[in-house]
């Protein structure tokens, strides 16, 4: 009697190459025949074939059934059920792109005003670039094989076999050589397609039945599978066609040489690739130094090419129909992959606009650069360590290049996953000791194995549980797998001889657990002593604070541990009793809940009262908004994923401890997460300067040449100073006022102004321009000084409005104007204005 598993398809993007190959791998562990059935469209597939699984066109939430039949069916059904419940739903990476201050679909003002031609598409990899178009008319034509000589069926089969072997070998070599995890995933997916039994069977079948040559059979088979996917309702599946065609072309190239298909065009200069599409292997072959951008008429946000473009940081816009027929090679273009715009032959003002935006981006990158090599320090000189969360040695290397002051969390799970046996002591020792070595004197906190729940590992045979997050996971399964854990502890201890290594235990809920684990460590130390193997006998041992019970016994635990690290994700989830992945209650998950923040403060205060240092290594640590909270808490360390480190250090440098403590006190009195967020957003604590006028809002040598440019420059100054969250909207608000009548008040002065909900802090920003700007002023004189007045929509209190009223009156005073216009530098302008503002 075959066994069955019923389930609803869990992946938002449906079946595509990566999940399908993971599913196949899971099924391949068993001898039983495993059949996948999509009960929505009644398609069935051999679960051990990636292509067959793809061909079921399974979409999110389709009802599905697995049928398992064979001598190991009982084991298989348990394992597959576990796989479908835990590992599989999490195997697809999120495809959301990073947030941008410029929403997709908006059109910047200069482009609207000049009314020049532009094309709109979907931005899928962020960035802005000005370059020349490199237009490719036919990107991946299936070759014309009519003149290729055809051998006997046996000869063609042999050639086919050879081509498969060579392409597969090449993919494997690339797999071994690549440093990029994304490229690795794509190569694996391509290898899975190539080695799919159904693909080869289809080709062989076509070759026999239709008397086709090997090449023609490959193309026909690719068309067959592509045809199925192309008719899928899911855009995502349609995009997988590219992967199949890519493999087919590689095979045909192998059979007949590259001349038969399109020769891969090479970039001779910096250029933007403009074409119908771009296949992943074409992308990999292109010179990334010269590839400045990608504009495609086809394609969605989830193709492998797009994922690669993101990984390489190359701006990419897709879905502009026929764009490859509208542009010419060599034509100057702007690719604005923030908003999704392509502007051919941009006018001077549009070009200046984008130069300004690009320059701002570079400025920001340069500004952050300075934080890489310095320790994180608050405005009042308090140190707060900024460390990195890593999962591998490669990530640790990258982290130190990004300025990590330590490894705050080394997740060791990756070392244990995707294999049939646990890693050996030597394997682990090599990774840990090398990390310790490159860290030098910096801390390397290694967390012992934290699996169960979301991270099943086949050789541990963890039981299927109704509620894995409250079940047999992390240290709770250590006793059953003591050998594995002893091996890990031993390798960490040995690595401690090479640097500042520390041990951290996950999922601790009580003192007994810590006592037991310390005993384990002690007996391994004794063994190492006997064998005269060196380690650091004073190695620090700490625990994760992720189970709420721990929060109430910090005093007791302090007698047994050297440090604490708050795992904010799990702690929030357990504290609020919310499964964040459950659509219905996920919204209740919020690490800024006032109750949670009060809990955190108590934990941190307790740890400090008992002389222990405490860090935070969850997602909350990557939330820039929360930085004043961390400073207010007086937390000792924040650990986050390493690309965010310079920004985090910069944010810390703007915080002042006393201000943050005051802010924290009022935040802890708020009643909802929304109120907390609002207060954090509005608090200018981060800028360190609440005043209406601040030096960072004064620029004395502006190169702006037009009213448009001057307003944009001023708005950007406010954005840089965290005084607005939406520069585009703020600009619009100012122009709305400007359109009523010019704010050029005469006397070479203009005072553009607005009240807007996008202003966090009432502000006056000043620009002194080297060239007079035509502002359509009352006296028709050019403007050399622009004072931008930005007021909050709710304008709390009249104090600032009074100041601005008195400034306005004062501007009518000739002597004051004279002093302002001739002020020596930014400091003098600030002091002039401050005198008036009182």
């Amino acid at each position, binding site marked *: 009697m075959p066994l069955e598993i019923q389930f609803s398809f869990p992946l938002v993007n449906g079946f595509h190459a990566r999940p399908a190959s993971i599913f196949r791998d899971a099924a391949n562990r068993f001898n039983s025949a495993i059949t996948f059935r999509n009960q929505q469209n009644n398609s069935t597939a051999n679960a051990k074939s990636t292509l067959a699984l793809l061909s079921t066109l399974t979409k999110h939430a389709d009802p599905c059934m697995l049928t398992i039949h064979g001598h190991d069916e009982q084991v298989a059904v348990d394992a597959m059920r576990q796989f479908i419940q835990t590992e599989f739903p999490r195997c697809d990476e999120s495809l959301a792109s990073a947030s941008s201050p410029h929403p997709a679909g908006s059109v910047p003002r200069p482009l609207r005003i000049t009314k020049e031609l532009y094309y709109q598409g979907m931005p899928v990899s962020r960035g802005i670039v000005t370059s020349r178009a490199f237009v490719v008319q036919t990107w991946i034509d299936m070759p014309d094989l009519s003149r290729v000589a055809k051998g006997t069926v046996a000869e063609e089969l042999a050639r086919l076999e050879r081509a498969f072997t060579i392409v597969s070998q090449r993919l494997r070599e690339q797999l071994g050589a690549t440093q990029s995890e994304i490229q690795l995933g794509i190569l694996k997916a391509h290898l899975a397609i190539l080695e799919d039994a159904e693909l080869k069977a289809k080709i062989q079948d076509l070759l026999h039945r239709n008397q086709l040559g090997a090449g023609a059979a490959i193309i026909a088979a690719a068309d067959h599978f592509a045809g199925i996917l192309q008719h899928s309702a899911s855009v995502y599946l349609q995009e997988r066609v590219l992967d199949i065609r890519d493999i087919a072309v590689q095979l045909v190239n192998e059979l007949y040489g590259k001349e038969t298909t399109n020769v891969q065009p090479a970039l001779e200069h910096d250029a933007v690739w403009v074409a119908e599409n771009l296949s992943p292997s074409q992308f990999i072959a292109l010179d990334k130094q010269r590839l400045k951008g990608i504009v495609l008429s086809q394609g969605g946000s989830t193709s492998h090419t797009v994922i690669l473009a993101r990984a390489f940081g190359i701006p990419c816009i897709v879905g502009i129909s026929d764009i490859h027929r509208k542009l010419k090679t060599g034509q100057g273009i702007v690719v604005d992959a923030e908003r999704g715009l392509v502007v051919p032959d941009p006018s001077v003002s549009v070009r200046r606009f984008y130069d300004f935006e690009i320059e701002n981006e570079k400025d920001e990158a340069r500004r952050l650069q300075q934080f890489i090599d310095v320790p994180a320090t608050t405005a009042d000189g308090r140190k707060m360590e900024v460390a990195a969360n890593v999962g591998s040695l490669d990530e640790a290397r990258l982290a130190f290049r990004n300025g990590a002051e330590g490894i705050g969390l080394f997740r060791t799970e990756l070392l244990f996953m995707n294999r049939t046996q646990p890693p050996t002591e030597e394997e682990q020792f090599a990774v840990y000791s090398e990390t310790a070595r490159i860290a030098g004197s910096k801390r390397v906190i290694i967390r012992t194995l934290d699996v169960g729940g979301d991270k099943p590992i086949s050789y541990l045979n963890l039981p299927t549980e109704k509620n894995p997050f409250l079940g047999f996971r992390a240290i709770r399964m250590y006793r059953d797998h003591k050998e594995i854990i002893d091996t890990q502890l031993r390798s960490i201890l040995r690595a401690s001889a090479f640097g500042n290594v520390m041990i951290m235990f996950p999922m601790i809920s009580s003192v007994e657990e810590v006592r037991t684990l310390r005993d384990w460590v002690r007996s391994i130390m004794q063994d190492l002593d006997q064998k005269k193997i060196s380690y650091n006998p004073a190695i620090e041992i700490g625990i994760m604070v992720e189970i709420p019970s721990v929060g109430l016994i910090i005093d007791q635990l302090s007698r047994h541990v050297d440090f604490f690290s708050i795992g904010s994700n799990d702690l929030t989830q357990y504290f609020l009793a919310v499964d964040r992945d459950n659509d219905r209650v996920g919204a209740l998950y919020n690490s800024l809940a006032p109750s949670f923040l009060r809990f955190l403060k108590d934990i941190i205060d307790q740890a400090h009262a008992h002389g222990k240092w405490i860090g935070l290594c969850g997602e909350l640590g990557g939330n820039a908004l929360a930085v004043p909270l961390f400073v207010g808490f007086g937390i000792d360390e924040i650990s986050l994923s390493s690309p965010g480190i310079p920004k985090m250090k910069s944010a810390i440098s703007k915080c002042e401890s006393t201000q943050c403590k005051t802010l924290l006190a009022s935040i802890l009195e708020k009643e909802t997460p929304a109120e907390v967020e609002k207060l954090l957003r509005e608090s200018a604590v981060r800028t360190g300067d609440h005043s209406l006028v601040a030096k960072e809002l004064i620029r004395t040598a502006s190169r702006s040449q037009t009213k448009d440019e001057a307003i944009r420059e001023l708005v950007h100054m406010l954005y840089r100073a965290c005084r607005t969250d939406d520069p585009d909207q703020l600009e619009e608000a100012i122009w709305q006022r400007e359109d009523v009548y010019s704010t050029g008040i005469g006397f070479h002065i203009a005072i553009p102004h607005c009240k807007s909900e996008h202003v966090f802090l009432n502000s006056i920003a000043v620009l002194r321009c080297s060239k007079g700007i035509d502002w359509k002023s009352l006296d028709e004189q050019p403007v050399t000084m622009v004072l931008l007045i930005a007021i909050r929509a709710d304008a709390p209190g009249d104090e600032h*409005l009074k100041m601005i*009223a*008195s400034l306005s009156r004062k501007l009518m005073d000739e002597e004051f104007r004279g002093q302002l216009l001739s002020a020596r530098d930014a400091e003098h302008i600030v002091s002039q204005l401050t005198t008036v503002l009182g």
Partner: protein
Amino acid sequence: MMNIVAVTACPTGIAHTYMAAAQLEKAAKKLGHTIKVETQGSMGIENELSEDDIRNADVALFAIGIPVRNRERFDRIKILEVTVQDAIKNPEGVIAKLIG
């Protein structure tokens, strides 16, 4: 020598209202007139004109970009209306118009 009451009011009420008020006060003083200027701006009505102020005045001057609030107060007095811009750019000219 005249006794003038004036109201200034601009669309956002942030700046021009107060600039116009300052200009009118300065010009009136220079030309030897007395003036009281009510501002209707972002802080609401300030330096509000009383019934007595208006009854004792020779003429009312509105330097505005939006309708004047409580306009009925001025039902029985001669009103000259100019733009806020006029008042800022040429306050003496505006006051001269009142006399003419």
